[in-house]
């Protein structure tokens, strides 16, 4: 009877009643500001019928006198131009091209699970799959070797596991599998496995600090061609500035590559030697979703 009296009394406040009856789980938004934490992929996709246009730049290394002689390395700019398009809210496809290495890349990213809070269908993690194929379009330099079209191809597969811990901090673990059909020497491995780690820290509501590190688990002994130095693990620190429709990402990294096969397996710069490069990503999103609101 007491319970019933309580029940009748609780009904007095309609708003409390609505709140207690709410069972809807809310999707966690903006784990990262862009589709990339810095150069590597984040769990974020472009929404359905939205096109994202990206211009990425990496400049020359800052070591020795380059920071003034080539003005922060700008004289040696490499560029990647890319388009990403959301087919659905979960499925995104992309195409890009990098200068210098003349690699075209074709990618797909699919949201397997979304982090959700509250209600009765919450889930602690965001999980995505990312895969790409790189096509090297440079002229083959060794006429003595038999050159196949497939020799131009390289692949990357990633499982992206992210979590927004609180409104200010997001983290990500990215197991990465890179395969190259053609490598420099027969002793070089075709496959490289790395474990990407990333984090993002909100500074103000329009700016963030990001860190990204891709330690390789295999293929660590591969040498940089024509040297006795080994390739390095990729490490970058970046800063996001968002201005309305643009996201501007400024970073320091030790790689000139802007696609996974490059920065995971072929990073040459040493942070300890100032082998780092200034770079930026500029992205602009366009909506082609016209039918949404009547």
């Amino acid at each position: 009877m007491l319970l019933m009296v309580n029940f009748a009394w609780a009904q007095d406040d309609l708003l409390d009643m609505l709140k207690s009856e709410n069972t809807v789980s809310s999707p966690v938004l903006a784990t990262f500001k862009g589709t990339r934490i810095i150069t590597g992929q984040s769990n974020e996709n472009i929404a359905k019928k939205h096109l994202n246009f990206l211009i990425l730049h990496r400049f020359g290394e800052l070591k020795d006198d380059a920071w003034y002689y080539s003005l922060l390395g700008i004289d040696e700019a490499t560029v990647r131009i890319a388009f990403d398009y959301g087919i659905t809210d979960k499925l995104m496809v992309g195409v890009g091209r990098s200068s210098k290495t003349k690699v075209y890349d074709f990618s797909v990213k699919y949201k397997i699970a979304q982090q959700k809070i509250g209600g009765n269908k919450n889930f602690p993690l965001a999980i995505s799959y990312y895969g790409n194929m790189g096509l090297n379009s440079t002229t083959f330099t060794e006429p003595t070797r038999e050159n196949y079209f497939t020799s131009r191809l390289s692949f990357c597969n990633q499982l992206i596991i992210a979590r927004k811990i609180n409104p200010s901090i997001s983290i990500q673990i990215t197991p990465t599998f890179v395969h190259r059909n053609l490598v420099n020497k027969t002793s070089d491995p075709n496959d490289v496995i790395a474990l990407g780690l990333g984090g993002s820290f909100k500074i103000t509501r329009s700016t963030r600090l990001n860190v990204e590190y891709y330690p390789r688990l295999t293929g660590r002994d591969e040498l940089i061609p024509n040297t006795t130095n080994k390739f390095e693990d990729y490490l970058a620190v970046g800063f996001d500035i968002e201005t309305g429709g643009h996201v501007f990402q400024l970073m320091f990294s030790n790689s000139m590559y802007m696609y996974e096969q490059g920065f995971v397996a072929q990073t040459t710069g040493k942070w300890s030697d100032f082998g780092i490069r200034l770079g930026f990503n500029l992205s602009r999103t366009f909506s082609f979703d016209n039918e949404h609101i009547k």
Partner: protein
Amino acid sequence: MKITNQAISMKLILTIATIAIFSVANSSAQTLYKATNATVSFFSKTPIEDIDGKSETATTLINLEKKDIAFMIQNNSFQFPNKLMQEHFNEKYMESEKYPISSFRGNIQENIDLKVAGVYQVTVNGKLTIHGITLDRTIPGTITVKEGSILLESNFIVKNSDHKIEIPSLVATKIADELNVKVKATLLPKN
């Protein structure tokens, strides 16, 4: 004998009390109407840009006897034609992780009997909570009472500055301070 008599009268009182409370609970259930798919849309108009968001999952309760109304909406249920705007709306302006819901609770001022079918122009005095700021508001609306359902409709204005929603000067020309809000809900008897 005396003891038995007392026991019987106790039982009787208990029974009556139980019936009374049951019937109270019952009658209150019949006066309660609920919607879980109410539509809330808002519109910001400036010479440079029009922005509109719409949610179709707001929840509403009305108590016909007490003429109380409650409204609740998950801020991140608003859909925008441009998803980047949607993200900014949640991340930068509403701060939906800190303040996940907006709500209104109020009381209908007019001396009317909402159990009788008809169309009523009403004013509702109550508290509107957006972005963690609760304001006393008087909101006009129309209530259409039909057999088995109730239609609520209302248009009113929400000022961003009143609710401490800061618009950076950079985008101040694109986002109006005054938002036109439209609410429409079809409520059914709550069981």
